[in-house]
């Protein structure tokens, strides 16, 4: 896949989902103002926003974009990387908006490391949820539960240490992205 195709997919999907993005960012900023301290609020809320944004990429929501991408000469794994970037960007933006809200709510700049830990958990949960977006029924529910479990596990590790949490999130995100790529490569849009 060319960088141009990659950028076109990301840009078009971000444009198509701009209203959801704005809503997620506004909600994250509000949560930041209301609960500016601690890691729980940004980690769980932004993970939730990321999971929701991943589910928005489900087939049928932007049916014409799906069809254009599926009929284009692209490989499933390449397409997976481009599509995965969209909810990750939105989740990152929501986390940053939470940070801005938290600063407005009285948090200090010292909260930045906690925010980066929350961001790592958010990205891992978002990438895990992407596999749910191309499944149906109980498999879909299980993947959503798995992504919630990833966020919970990241939180548990964050209370132990940042390095353990970062290592777990990086591993979970890598496996989730590979799994999503394999799924898209085999996916039949029936």
């Amino acid at each position, binding site marked *: 896949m*060319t960088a*141009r*195709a990659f*950028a*076109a*997919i990301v840009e*078009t999907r971000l*444009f*198509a989902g701009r209203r959801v993005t704005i809503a997620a960012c506004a909600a994250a900023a509000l949560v930041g103002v209301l609960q500016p301290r601690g890691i729980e609020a940004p980690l769980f809320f932004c993970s939730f926003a990321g999971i929701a944004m991943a589910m928005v990429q489900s087939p049928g929501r932007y*049916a*014409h974009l799906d*069809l*254009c*991408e*599926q*009929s*284009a*000469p*692209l*490989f499933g794994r390449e397409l997976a990387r481009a599509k995965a970037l969209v909810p990750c960007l939105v989740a990152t933006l929501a986390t940053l908006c939470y940070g801005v809200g938290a600063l407005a709510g009285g948090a200090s700049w010292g909260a930045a490391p906690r925010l980066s830990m929350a961001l790592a958990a958010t990205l891992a949960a978002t990438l895990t949820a992407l596999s749910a977006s191309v499944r149906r029924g109980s498999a879909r529910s299980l993947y959503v539960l798995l992504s919630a479990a990833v966020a919970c596990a990241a939180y548990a590790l964050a209370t132990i240490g940042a390095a353990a949490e970062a290592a777990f999130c990086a591993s979970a995100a890598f496996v989730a992205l590979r799994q999503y790529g394999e799924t898209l490569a085999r996916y*039949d*849009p*029936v």
Partner: protein
Amino acid sequence: MVLLRMRAAGFDGAGASVGPLTLDVRAGERAALTFPTAAQASLAAKLAAGIVKATFGSVAVDDFDTRVQSAHCKRAAAFVGHDPLSPPHFDFERYVLYRAALWNVDPAHALATAQLAMERLEGVHEAFAYPLAAALISNPKLLVLDRPPAVYAQQIVDAAGPRAMLTTHGGARDAAAFDDAAVWDRTPA
């Protein structure tokens, strides 16, 4: 040269099935396939364009197997879906440039080709015309249309030009409209 070769090909799974289909479409030829349901017509078009992989039989586009060389197949065959384009893609230039990026076509060339196709599609509603015009920017050898509107049959045939074309239909009446509009031509493009 056979551009589309289907041999007892079909799909069965995910609550949908179609086939077995056996068909050859050569360069410059047009074929219309009629199915009892719209879902089967849509599935057959996606099979022929390499978007859905056959679960039995074989489908080859430009001699590439759709199961193992789907990216090559998608360079040779352009697919136009049934559903009209909906916002936010009603900006013609933006839409054509998006498609040009996916097919790695030069933006200026893509816009010129799509504009030419739009001239041939005069009278066709933009929601139907844009996807067809954009499908032609990569100069495909084969055009696969999923249940194209019968009312625009003549314009669609004009826009497709001499390239091979396969249309699928959910009823015989729509297919007949395309037969009426078509000139059966076996001359290679």
